Each structure stands twice: as C-alpha cells, then as structure tokens.
C-alpha cells in the first residue's frame, strides 16, 4: 500500500487507480466535515460530491507545501461556502434545521443544541464558523487551523476567544435551556 505522498504523486501523474484510492481514503473525512457544516445528510452528500469533483480538477495544484489534509479541508470549506451561497439564493436563510435522521430523543436534543451553537457562531461570520469547526470538531490545534484558513495563529485564537464570549453572553441571556425550533 502506497503512503500518502506517493499516492498523491501517482494521482497527479494521471493514474486513475491512485486517485480512486486517494478519494476513497478521504471520502469519510470530507463527508463528516460537510455534515458538520450543514447538519443535513443529503446536503452533506451534495457538498461531498462537489468536493470530490473539485479535488479531481485541482489535485495537480497541490505542491506539498503543507499537509494534504490541510489543503483538503481548505477545498471542502470552499465547496461548503459555495453550496451555502447557492442555497441562500434558492431558499433564503432557512439553513439552520436539525437533521431529521437523528435517531433518539437525546441525540435529537444534542443535535439541536449543537446546531444552535453553530448557528450562533455562524452569525458572527463564516470565518468564526470555520475556526470553530476545525478546532472543536476536527480537533486541530490553532496552528493547524491557521494553516488551513491561511491566517495567523493568533487570529484563530482571537476568533475562538470571541466565540467563547458570544456563547457565554447567549447562555447568560437565556439561562436554563435553549430555544428549540423546528
């Protein structure tokens, strides 16, 4: 089995098998991040498909200057933003809906709570949402998130600090429970 760099180089040289193996290896990662971005399985599948197509088209632009995963996250974030913009054009701002596939009631509540948090962060700006998803959801360090988002590490730290402040304000304003919405 080829290592990641060799696989990427083989795919860049035009080997379909290498590309197929590469995309199979990263499909779940892409889908997971897309789901966390949009909180909908169907939409996440759409975003993932677009990301896969974009990966095929732009793989030769990867120059091994950063980790492939960082480059790939950047690509998926761009696809997710494109999808979000197209959805806004088509059906307004109704994007914050909990996924209907949640199995249990606890999962549903957790999902709703998480979506409210993400929605609150998204109101601050897409750059805050990106930073929150990469650090809190994907478990990246501030430095790694800074590489993905092509900003300074201190910028990531500042954004997360602002997110914390905003969430605390929200919690203090609505003690006890979060408003549920359908």
């Amino acid at each position: 089995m080829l290592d990641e760099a060799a696989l990427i180089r083989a795919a860049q040289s035009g080997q379909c098998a290498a590309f197929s193996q590469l995309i199979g290896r990263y499909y779940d990662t892409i889908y997971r991040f897309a789901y966390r971005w949009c909180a909908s399985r169907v939409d996440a599948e759409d975003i993932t498909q677009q990301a896969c197509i974009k990966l095929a088209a732009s793989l030769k632009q990867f120059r091994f200057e950063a980790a492939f995963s960082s480059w790939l996250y950047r690509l998926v974030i761009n696809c997710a933003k494109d999808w979000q913009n197209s959805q806004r054009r088509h059906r307004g701002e109704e994007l914050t809906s909990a996924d209907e596939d949640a199995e249990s009631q606890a999962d549903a509540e957790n999902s709703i709570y998480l979506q409210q948090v993400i929605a609150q962060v998204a109101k601050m700006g897409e750059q805050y949402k990106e930073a929150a998803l990469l650090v809190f959801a994907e478990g990246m360090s501030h430095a790694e998130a800074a590489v993905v988002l092509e900003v300074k590490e201190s910028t990531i730290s500042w954004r997360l600090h602002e997110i914390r402040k905003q969430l605390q304000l929200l919690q203090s304003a609505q003690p006890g429970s979060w408003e549920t919405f359908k």
Partner: protein
Amino acid sequence: MNDEQLAQLFAAQKIPPASDDAKNAALTAAMQAFAQQNTATAPKQITSSVTAPTTAGEALPLTRLFTLFNTLVRRLATKHTGRFRLKSRAASFSGWIAVAGLHIGLVLALMIGLHPRDEMVITENVKVEAVEDLQEKVAPPPPPPPDYVPSPPDFTPPPQFNVAADAPTPANAITTAPAKAAEAAPVMAKAPPSPARAAKKGLAPPPYPIESKRLGEEGVVELALYLTAEGKVQEGRIETSSGFARLDQAALKHAMTNWKFEPCKQEGKAIACWHKIKFRFQLKDS
C-alpha cells in the same frame, strides 16, 4: 462554555453515514472529472513554431515584417545601449537615432509601398464613375447675369432755338448738326423694356438688425437686383450704402431670399433685367 465542553458537544454529535448510492455517485463523478482533466491536460504534440522560409517571389506577410523589425530594433538597442542600460550618452543617442529612423522608415513603407498598383486602379475607376454621374445628373448652372450697366438717362431733345434768318451768323457761333440727330434716331427704334414692379402682394420689409437698433443706425440703402424672367432675384449688389454695413447686408440678404417682382417686359415678353430699389431704415418705423 469552555473549549472542552464544545469539543465534547461535537464529539457526541451523531453523524449519519452517507448512503452508498451517494458515495458511489460522488466517486463516479470524481473519476469522470479526473479522467476528463487528464485528457484535457495531456501533453500536446509540439509543433515547430518556425515558419518555412519564404520563396524569392513571395511577398512577406505583415506579421513577419513586424517580427523582423522588432528583432532588428532590439539588436540595435542592445548593441548600442547594452540591453537598454545607458553606457554612454553618445551610444544612447546614436541608438535612439537609429530606432527613430527605423520607425520613420517603417511608417513610410506602410504608407507608400504596400500594393500601390491596386490602389491606383481603384482610384481611377472611382473617378470615371463620378464624372459620368456628374455629367448625367447635375444640371448645368444658370448663366451668370450680365454686368450691371446703368440705364442711360431718358433722351431729351435739345431745346429748339429760333434763329432769325436775316441775322448774321457770328464766326464763332455754335451750330447744331441735324444730320447727327437723324443718325441717332434708328438706335431708339426698339422700345425700351418696361421696368419691373413689385409683386401684387407687395414686398416685405427687411427685419431691422437688433444690433443696429441698439446703436441707433439709420440710413437709405440702394440695391441693384438682377431679376429673372420669372421675377425672382438671382443676384444683387449694394448700389449705394446706407453708411452701415449691417443695414446694407440685412437689406440685400432679405431681398435675395424674400422678394419677388413682376418681371421687366419688352414688347410684351418677360425678360431678365436689372432693377434698382431703395429701402430706408428708420427706427421709428421698425
């Protein structure tokens, strides 16, 4: 809410797996895009960019001419200025002179030398057609009016003097010559033309120039107008000025464009003639 709580919240998130159909569709679409991308960016067969040398009789295309010119200029500039870095004033000056000369020569060659034969043929054709059209379509200009000759004063016979028959004739007396008067009689045989008259509806007075009004200019202008057989004013001139060119021109321009007369007649037949008319510019009338 701290970072750990947020991380736990995300970790506890249930993410439903993607459906197999969606995954297969995504992989298929990606593979198609990958194949298309590699087909599109496949290395093309390198073709030589060097064109075949032209034969002796073949004309140089314009693009090739420009390429040669640019190459020559760059070589000259490089030689004289060392890749456009000025080594000395003399070198740079001669280099720029050479470049300017080449530019001028190229412009002249483009203006004069390109296909002169074809241009001549086209010009000749155009000229021939234009002359034919003019001959067919343009009506001949009306004959110029004859020069204005003031009409001679009406003939008045000299007074008859009754001379006494018995009176002696002085030596230095002035004698009339009846023979000369008899000779002049045939000249007056043809009846003089009747003068032109204003049309029945009258002549509209020329407008008083605003500037003349403001400056209080007044005067009488006498115009000589050449009337056609239809009574239209064909030509006019100022016979006696009013003293103000503005008034003179206003009257003449108005007469040329607006006035119409009943023509002169000779033996009952309308003829063209010169006609004199006066117009007085007076402020109280305007």
